[in-house]
């Protein structure tokens, strides 16, 4: 029972972690809490739905196309809504992210209606029984892809030239510019990357959540909570925060009371913020 709840918690937690990564990337590079992250995930899920279900493409091809479409969307949104007010006040930029989220959500509601779309579980619905334990292949894949992606991102940021440029930009925009880094390109790239990672989180969760215009609101809250929990300046913190939230929800629901499932998850967040305001893995400012 305990192990079973942990397995469920890990899968959902890794998706929360990916969503949190988007928040952390945006916070570091743009210095803004980007409340459109959840809706970016929704858009990603819709792209996969369109390519794989509406167009009937092979799932791998559909996934690649959906990632590409997410990247393009990120690029366009950055140009229209984020770039023009880069020098603006923080509060204006924050409001812009909320506006982008609301616009996207309602645009998709108008285009696709408010009803959810079913999404077949690509990795198979049939559970594998290991002793008394039930393992749903989909959950294994979600966990593996979630952590794999987080690891790849870490490698990319640590080793690649672009990644180093992104980190330098995040640390100090002006100095990075003096060092010859094209700061604006670097920021655009970060935005696109955050959109793609969020989009993949949306695609991973599509079979579980169904795909609907409103799914972004809930995903955004979970990602935000995970990011704050883990620490807004820490990549690994985002994944840890996601895992803690996912596990807390499942264990609280299973062992304490499902009525307080969400409440307990947020209680943990409040406690962490009281005793470690910078988040679990965050650095003290």
């Amino acid at each position, binding site marked *: 029972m305990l192990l079973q709840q942990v397995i469920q918690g890990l899968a959902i937690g890794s998706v929360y972690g990916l969503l949190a990564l988007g928040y952390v990337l945006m916070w570091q590079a743009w210095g803004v809490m980007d409340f459109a992250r959840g809706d970016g995930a929704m858009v990603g899920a819709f792209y996969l739905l369109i390519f794989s279900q509406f167009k009937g493409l092979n799932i791998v091809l559909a996934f690649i196309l959906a990632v590409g479409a997410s990247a393009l969307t990120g690029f366009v949104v950055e140009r229209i809504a984020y770039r023009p007010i880069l020098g603006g006040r923080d509060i204006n930029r924050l409001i812009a992210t909320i506006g982008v989220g609301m616009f996207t959500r309602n645009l998709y509601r108008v285009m696709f209606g408010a009803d959810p779309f079913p999404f077949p579980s690509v990795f198979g619905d049939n559970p594998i029984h290991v002793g008394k334990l039930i393992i*749903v292949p989909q959950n294994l894949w979600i966990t593996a892809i979630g952590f794999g992606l987080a690891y790849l991102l870490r490698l990319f940021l640590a080793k690649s030239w672009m990644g180093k440029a992104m980190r330098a930009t995040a640390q100090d925009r002006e100095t990075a510019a003096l060092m010859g880094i094209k700061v604006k390109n670097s920021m655009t790239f970060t935005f696109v990357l955050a959109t793609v990672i969020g989009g993949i989180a949306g695609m991973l969760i599509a079979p579980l959540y*169904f795909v609907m215009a409103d799914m972004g609101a*809930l995903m955004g809250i979970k990602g935000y909570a995970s990011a704050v929990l883990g620490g807004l300046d820490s990549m690994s913190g985002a994944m840890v925060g996601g895992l803690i939230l996912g596990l807390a929800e*499942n*264990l609280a*629901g299973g062992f304490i009371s499902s009525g307080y*499932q969400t409440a307990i998850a947020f209680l943990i967040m409040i406690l962490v913020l009281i005793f470690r305001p910078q988040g679990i893995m965050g650095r003290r400012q």
Partner: protein
Amino acid sequence: MKAYARVAVVAGLLLAMISVGTAMGAAPVKIGIVGPLSGGAAMVGDTLVKGAALAIKHLNETGGIHGRQLTYVSEDDEQNPAKSVSAVNRLVFQHKVDAVVGTVNSSCQLACQEVTQRAQVPHVTPIASNPKVTRVGNKWVFRLQASDAQQCTAIIDYAVNVLKLKKLALMYQSDDYGTGGKDVIVPYLQEKYGMKLIASEPFNPDAKDMSAQILKIKNAGADGLVMWTMYQQGALIARQAKQLALQVPLMGGGGLTNPKLIELAGDAAYGLLNTQTFFPDPKGASPEAAAFIGAYQKEYGVLPDSNAAMSYDAMMILGLSMRKAGADVNKAKVRDAMADTKGHRGVTGVIDIDEYGDANREILIIGIDNKGAYEVIWPKR
């Protein structure tokens, strides 16, 4: 003086004509129908009028009200409580209707039934389901829709008596609808069967991951799962229950009836059961319902839904009560006759009107078969 005399003569003649007309049974009995005829719920308003109109046609074909024909006028409330009040005001004071049928939305119903109460006009609502409608002490209002409480007890009876389940678990959404269901189910199970729920798990109405609840229910050894929620969450539960190998009958209330549930949950929805008051399945239907389905299809070219059936039954009971009350359609007598309705063989079942003005009847259990289509499971025919 001459002018006055002429007016008096004309007035006298007019009065005489009216009274002669009444005595000859020529003046029609007027029914006012109020419903959302435009806006978001216009489809429901449309079926409401169609169902009542078909009943009026059938009543007229069988002699009307002691020779008087029934006619109707309809008014639009746009699913807006304020507009429902003015709509019913128009029906009662301008059109001078003998009775009102409608409306759909519970808030509109609660508002507009105050007009008919003050004017002492019989009022029957086919669709509004909020329990309050018949619990505000309004003696002039009757309701055909099965309240949520009736649906809860029906599914529990089916689970215990027919499926012989002994360890029922409940999942309910943590809002008025879900907790309302739980508040009926828990005491009913205790008082009627001396049973307790083996697990009672709430979830947020927007929750997506139900695995914690499902695992808990599975671990508790449940042999049946009742879920009091709408179709979307129902589909999530069905799908996740299948994934987590919770292999027990899934059942719930009318909120689950929606082909979208089958689309969302796929084969995980097969076998799912829920309550319903009417289902257009001519094979599993009672003779009354089958006749209605045929007549409705012939009249309008589409299958009736449960709203049309409720509306038909509402108008039928109203019409038959008018016949009982006599040719002058005295409103108080019509009201009393409606309150006395017992064993009316309607298209939504055999109906008794209870002390609150609610229609009690046997509730249907419908299920999803192995091809993903709804069929009537209970009562067996």
